[in-house]
C-alpha cells in the first residue's frame, strides 16, 4: 500500500505552523492515529471489564478526564461515550470481539485530527479561542474537555508534559488552523 497517498487534514499548513516555532508558541499536527468512538453502559461492569482488558487500561468514568498513555488513550466524552485514540489498528476489531451486548464501536479516524499546542503562550491562545477555564488550578494533567473553539468545537487535552492537544473535526481543521495562526502571530 506504499503507493497510497495519505493526507491528514492539516498537511497543507505544516509550513505555516513551522514559521511560528521559536516563539512563545509551537503548533503542529500530530502523526495520524486511529480514532474510535466507543459507546456503552458505564454501569455495566462486564462491558467496562472487557474494554479494560482489550485496551490495557480502564475507561475513564470521571467526567472530563482521560486514561491511557501516548500510544493509546481513552477520553471521556459523555456518560456512555468515549473517544479512543490508538496507533494499534487492531484495537477496533479487538473491541468488537471482546464487547458483548449493547455497545457501539465506530471508526472515525478519517474525520478527526490532533493539533499539538506547546509553549508559554499556549494557555493564552486557548483563552482567546475558548470559553472554558483552562487555568492550571482547574484544568490539570489528565483532564480533557469538549468545548467551543472559536466558531467550531474541540476536545482539549492537558498532557503530562503540560502541553495541550486539540482533537478536532477534519472539515473544520483548515479554519481552526487559520484561527491559531492568527491568534499566535503576536507571540512568534
Amino acid at each position, binding site marked *: 500500500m506504499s503507493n497510497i497517498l495519505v493526507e491528514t487534514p492539516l498537511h497543507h499548513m505544516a509550513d505555516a505552523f513551522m514559521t511560528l516555532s521559536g516563539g512563545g508558541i509551537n503548533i503542529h499536527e500530530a502523526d495520524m492515529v486511529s480514532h474510535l468512538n466507543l459507546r456503552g453502559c458505564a454501569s455495566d461492569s462486564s462491558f467496562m471489564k472487557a474494554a479494560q482488558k482489550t485496551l490495557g487500561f480502564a475507561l475513564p468514568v470521571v*467526567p*472530563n478526564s482521560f486514561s491511557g498513555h501516548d500510544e493509546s488513550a481513552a477520553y471521556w466524552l*459523555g456518560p456512555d461515550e468515549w473517544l479512543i485514540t490508538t496507533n494499534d489498528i487492531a484495537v477496533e476489531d479487538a473491541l468488537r470481539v471482546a464487547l458483548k451486548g449493547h455497545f457501539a464501536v465506530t471508526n472515525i479516524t478519517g474525520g478527526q485530527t490532533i493539533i499539538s499546542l506547546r509553549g508559554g503562550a499556549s494557555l493564552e491562545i486557548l483563552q482567546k479561542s475558548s470559553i472554558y477555564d483552562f487555568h492550571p488550578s482547574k484544568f490539570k494533567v489528565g483532564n480533557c*474537555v469538549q*468545548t*467551543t473553539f472559536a466558531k467550531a468545537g474541540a476536545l482539549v487535552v492537558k498532557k503530562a508534559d503540560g502541553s495541550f492537544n486539540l482533537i478536532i473535526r477534519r472539515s473544520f481543521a483548515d479554519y481552526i488552523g487559520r484561527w491559531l495562526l492568527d491568534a499566535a502571530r503576536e507571540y512568534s
Partner: protein
Amino acid sequence: MLKIHCPYCDEQREEEEFSYSGEAHISRPLDPGALSDADWADYLFFRKNTRGWHHEMWQHSAGCRRYFNVTRHTVTYEIFESYPMGTTPKALPKGDAR
C-alpha cells in the same frame, strides 16, 4: 450570559456550550391518532411561557451532547437546579427569586 450546570459533566459551563430546547416535561402523546386536532395542537404549539420559575430543556451541544432539564427564573434568569431527563424537579423555592 448564563452559567449552566451540566449534570453529566458535573460542571458549571458557559451558555455558549448549550442549546435551549424549550419547555420541559411535555411528553409525546402515546396515541396521537386518538387525539382531537385541538389536543394535538396543544401538544404541538401551546406553551406555558411562564413568567417566573420555568422548567426547560437544554442540550450540552458543545460538550457531552446530553439533554437535561433546568429550573430557571425567566425574569431574574437565576438558575435553581439542573436535573437529568426522566427525573423530577425539586420543589420550587418559596416566592420569587433573589
